[in-house]
């Protein structure tokens, strides 16, 4: 099993992934981590030490908003949701990510041809 730590993810990627996950609906930290792992098929496994600072950073920058709600366990949990500002940011980040991925892909394809 390959476990991607924060250091393996390109700079800023974790933020983009979190925003994408939260875009589906309000979610607490544990669920976000779970979802990231499931969707990436266990490739992206973020620890608490990485996840929460990222969440707080995104909240401070106004991309996420937080609500305290009672959750299924009966405890109050902090639910993050995407703000309008976060949505715009996510879109532009996703776009530039896609462009970069395409470019990287194209370059890799050329070098495969040569090889």
């Amino acid at each position, binding site marked *: 099993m390959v476990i991607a730590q924060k250091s393996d993810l390109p700079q800023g990627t974790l933020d983009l992934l979190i925003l994408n996950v939260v875009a589906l609906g309000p979610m607490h930290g*544990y669920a976000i981590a779970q979802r990231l792992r499931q969707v990436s098929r266990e490739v992206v496994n973020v620890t608490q030490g990485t996840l*929460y600072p990222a969440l707080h950073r995104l909240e401070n920058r106004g991309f996420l908003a937080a609500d305290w709600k009672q959750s299924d366990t009966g405890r109050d949990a902090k639910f993050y949701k995407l703000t309008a500002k976060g949505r715009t940011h996510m879109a532009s980040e996703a776009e530039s990510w896609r462009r970069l991925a395409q470019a990287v892909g194209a370059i890799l394809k050329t070098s495969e041809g040569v090889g």
Partner: protein
Amino acid sequence: MNWLTRLMRHERLEAQLDAELRDHFERLVLDYVRDGLSEPDARRRARLEFGGLDQVKEVCRDARGTRWFEEFTQDVRYGWRGLMRNRSFAIVAILTLALGVGANTAVFGVINALLLRPLPVPDPTGLISLQRRVGTQAGGNFSYPQVLELSKQGDLFKLLCGFGRDQVTVGPAGAMEPAVVAWVSGHYYDTLGLSPQAGRLLIPADDEPGASPSAVLSDAYWTRRFGRNPGVIGESIQIEGVPVPIVGVSPAGFTGANVGEAVDLTLAIQSRLVVRPDQPFYTGPGARWLRILARPQPDLPQDQLQARAIVVWRQLMEASIRPTTLPEDRRRLMSEELDVLPGRTGTSLVRAEFRFPLQIAMGFVIVVLLIACVNVANLLLARGATRQREIAVRLSIGAGRARIVRQLLTESTLIAVGGMAAGLVVAWIGSRALLTLMAAGRGLEGAGALALNLTPDWMMVAVTILMVGGTTLIFGVAPAWRASRVQPGAAMSASGRVAESHGRLGSSLVIAQVALSLVLVIGAGLFARTLYNLRALDRGFDVTDVLVVGTSAQRAGFTGPKLAAFNSQLLTFIEQVPGVRAASVAAITPLAGGGITQAIAVNGVRTGEGEMHFNSVGPRYFDAMRTPIVAGRDFARGDGPAGPYVAIVNEAFVRQYMTGPPLGQRVSVLGSAREMQVVGVVKDTAYETLREAPPTVYSAHQQRLAAATFVVHAPGATAAVASAIRAEVQSRLGGRLPRISTLTDQLEGSLVLERLLARATLMFGALALALAAVGLYGLTSYWVTSRTREIGVRVALGARTACVLRLVLGDALRMVAFGVAAGLVSAWGLSRLIESMIFGLSATDITTVAFAVIVLVFTGLLAGLIPARRATRIDPHLALRNE
């Protein structure tokens, strides 16, 4: 959520972070249980995966970006708690600083207002001031014709104005009151660049010959007398009985170009001919009473301006020399130079007067601040030493050294901020007290008293903050650094060695304090004795129970024979008032702050280069002043205009300029044909200042009519006599009140500087002494505490009380001795600086120095005695058990 809210909600955010992470943890555990692990296993595994909860929290806090502030508030809270636990330490430290900072801010506030603050006009740095200088004698004023000539030099000065200050009476008969007026040339307000607050300001046309007078009110006078009523513009006020229309109000905050001497009214110089027709000479070439501010042509470099100003001035002086001018005068005129100086801060007569005393006071308070800092540093050192155990604990559980230094510095910053706040209160009171001391006895009661703007400006704020920042560094860093240099192990086991090293630094600080306060005590002693010497000086007259009465008869229009008749009638009246023993008139009364000097010839021969001091007095003047007549006779009623001209000289004059018996010799004012025969010799008397009794010639008042001030000796009845005279003069002069003061007032008025210096330095010296005593006491009692065990052992081995006392006091006195030695050397080095200000003793006067040394040794003994007595009461059993 913004940065600030995040700070404010710190507590809640911490709780939320905690809840959030706990929630995550619990869910993880739940998942593991769901995967089939037992609850304890699930928890263990979750904890493993989770890592250090505190580390995660730290990273999250970093993400919040407010960590420095959280640590800072933590430091502040911690420091505050520490100070509260040891309140007496905090109070002593804060009070010490408050006195040090407050005294400095107070003195600096006055210096700032008088010497440094720019005039409240646009572009004050563009102003220059012109001054006449003869040799090293700078600061000379100008005559009105000279101002007019200089203002014509358009290639040098874009704008130039002259101005002078005077006191007038304002109001209708029966309700007259004094007001301060500035007489200004036409371009005054143009040069300063001011615009009116209401109405208009004076323009060049107001200063044309024959222009009718117009008055501009100052903002303060407009408020005080007219309640800021804009309707007064266009109305007239009576100035010296002459109605003058008010044309406008000058801007708020502008009190005139003479700093320290606020004016109420501003009039053009030409108006003086209408308002004060009794003094026409003020617009002539003989009266030099105006100061000059100008704006130079903008493209003219400073050095060229100065060079060309010298040339222009020489031409002006040459043109002013007439064929009749005496050769000495010609030489003196041609030796005059014109200085071009910065005019940013305006001009001021009081500035030159007070500069030196204020500098001395500033020197004193800086030393006081240094001593205060040393005290606080010592307190912190001692505190640091007692807290070494605590610091060692914190170091050993992983606190960084920088963090500890920062913590300790936060504490000293708290003390500094507290000291600054309390110091501002001290400063507010102190600067006003200082101003009162400076203004006292200036002979300008009410209106015209010394007026300085003490409102804090950025300069004051900057200096205070710099001072507090500097002192925090001085007294905070060294103790903090030292305290943090603890070997955790060493400090935990035995504190003896550390205490020893603190003792060495501490005692050198105390020695410095003793040295500094000795210098101040010696200085204060010298100034106090100067004041005492001057007051106690026999200057040939007795000031007790002598009234000095000035009338405004001339201003009320009495001239020539009418004035003489008025004066003689008033004198007759005064002599008959019950309680009057002797009364007379004089042109000049001693110590009034002015005089007449003239070149005199003895038996037709000029008496060398020196100028004689001159006075004109009536019969019984010497009786009223109780000046002994040494030889010959007093002036008599018969010495009138018809009789032979007579004079009385003083002993100094005889000594210096006469040979042979003085009586019968002839003296005359140089250039005058009227020779006076010397009929009497009187004892030497002080003239303008108490510091000297110059050669003086008195003429008979009836033969040489001059201004008349009445001197009245009324033993024990001055108040009643004064009110009788007041009523009489008021009824004769249509409501004008006489100016009545006492000779004692005049004496005190002439001692303003000496009194200021004596009082200020005594106060600051006492402050320094008290602070040094506190320092010595603190260190000695610290010493006793840290050596309780040693003393206990000594007592157990049979040391007697006297022996313990000697041990403790010997240490304290050794420090005093070193301090006194260092202080004597510094005082000797500084003695030359104040030589010019002291009188009747030398700046290294042995009695004063000895007295100061005794005071310090005594203070040192007193400060050491309390801890020493405590040391003698140490119970050896208890002392040994406690260790």
